[in-house]
């Protein structure tokens, strides 16, 4: 019982934003990629759904070209959505969320960290993969570029919005469906601009306006939503 004899010094008066952020980010990433196989799952899932489409729709090249960006965006949306529960629900169920909110770490810090982790596990791989999928739908080079750029700007917004919605539905009845009802409508605007960018590019116009709107949206969301998420978490734990 060596350790029991000793006693450690008291902790310094609590962590910084960055400390909290990196703690939460590291933890959630570890949980996400706990087992090598699972890193592939999001990606696999994404590719899968994207390839469901041509099958459902029947495959003429020009039709595919036409719907390509939209489909890819819907996939991004869905896989962001499907990985939402991992963000708060499980931590809420096993009491981890209480521990976090009682820790000296500032809540905005670890909330941001969790959101970042969610994005790196869902949005980021999708963004990196999108050019390949775009090729599947044989999109032109610049369209692919616009698509990737739009995803890079848009998927973080999805993670932010999604975080707010899961936090709101913590402990609520109705589970996944309720979450869908809340989150998907909020995702729609992102989808509109995101898909719009690629389509504008494809039809010869510039994607710039859509992208700049997405960028603006990202900034607003990044400013406004984390506090909202914190509030939602506090409400959930009350």
């Amino acid at each position: 019982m060596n350790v029991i004899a000793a006693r450690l010094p008291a902790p310094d008066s609590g962590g910084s934003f960055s400390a909290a952020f990196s703690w939460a980010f590291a933890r959630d990433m570890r949980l996400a990629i706990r087992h090598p196989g699972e890193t592939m799952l999001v990606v696999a899932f994404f590719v899968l759904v994207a390839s469901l489409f041509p099958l459902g729709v029947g495959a003429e090249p020009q039709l595919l070209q036409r719907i390509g960006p939209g489909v890819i965006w819907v996939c991004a949306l869905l896989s962001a959505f499907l990985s939402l529960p991992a963000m708060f629900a499980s931590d809420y169920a096993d009491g981890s969320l209480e521990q976090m909110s009682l820790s000296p770490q500032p809540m905005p810090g670890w909330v941001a960290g969790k959101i970042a982790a969610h994005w790196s596990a869902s949005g980021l791989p999708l963004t990196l993969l999108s050019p390949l999928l775009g090729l599947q739908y044989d999109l032109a080079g610049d369209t692919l570029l616009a698509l990737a750029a739009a995803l890079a700007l848009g998927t973080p917004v999805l993670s932010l919005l999604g975080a707010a919605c899961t936090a709101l539905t913590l402990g609520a009845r109705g589970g996944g469906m309720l979450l869908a009802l809340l989150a998907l409508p909020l995702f729609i605007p992102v989808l509109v601009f995101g898909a719009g960018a690629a389509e504008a590019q494809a039809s010869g116009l510039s994607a710039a306006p859509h992208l700049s709107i997405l960028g603006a949206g990202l900034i607003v969301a990044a400013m406004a939503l984390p506090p909202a998420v914190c509030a939602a978490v506090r409400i959930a734990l009350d």
Partner: protein
Amino acid sequence: MKIPWFYFASPSTFYRLAGWMAPWFFVLAALFGAAGLYVGLVLAPTDAQQGEVYRIIFIHVPASWMSMFIYFVMACYGGVSLTFNTRLAAMMARALAPTGAMFTFVALWTGSFWGRPTWGTYWVWDARITSELVLLFLYFGFIALANAFEDPRRGDRAAALLALIGLVNLPIIYFSVVWWNTLHQGASVKLTGSTMQIQMLWGMLLMALSFWMYSIGASLTRVRAVILDRERRTHWVRALAT
């Protein structure tokens, strides 16, 4: 707790107050409605290209306005209930939601009904129309979330927060016609002079007033029900029952 505002904010007093006010708003709604319909259906001239169909505008536009306006008010109540933790504000938000959803639905319905003759289809995935649809789902989400918890106070808080987040959608609805070249026509009612017939304008405004009054009346009536349900264990409600 000295301020009379808090006095009125106490559910029991507000319950009586609402019960007393609601009928008057319904009366006003009826009056404005009658006037609005008269102006809209009788005075306003037949439209050059569209013929009589365009008269849907007297329902469609006011309904659309209310759908957005009510959401805004609802969000404000939500904000108040969150910041000051006042029960009544939350109840008002709950009471507003169904009316708002109703007007949103009417806007969609009349709109698509209007679309048939003018655009040749009931439905297009036009930005404004879609964002209006999103608004409808936001209302649904609000109602669903507010009732998704055993503890009504938690429902209040969560739903209020959702309403605030959803505010983002309003500018999208309103400016969508500007941001995209949509099938839907742009704002013709502007503060700086309007492009449309004066009678049409008056008709729309009167109908809007009527809808507004109706909304207040309806929400007041509904909030009484909410109050009763929420306070059913208190003495004053028991007293009412007996």
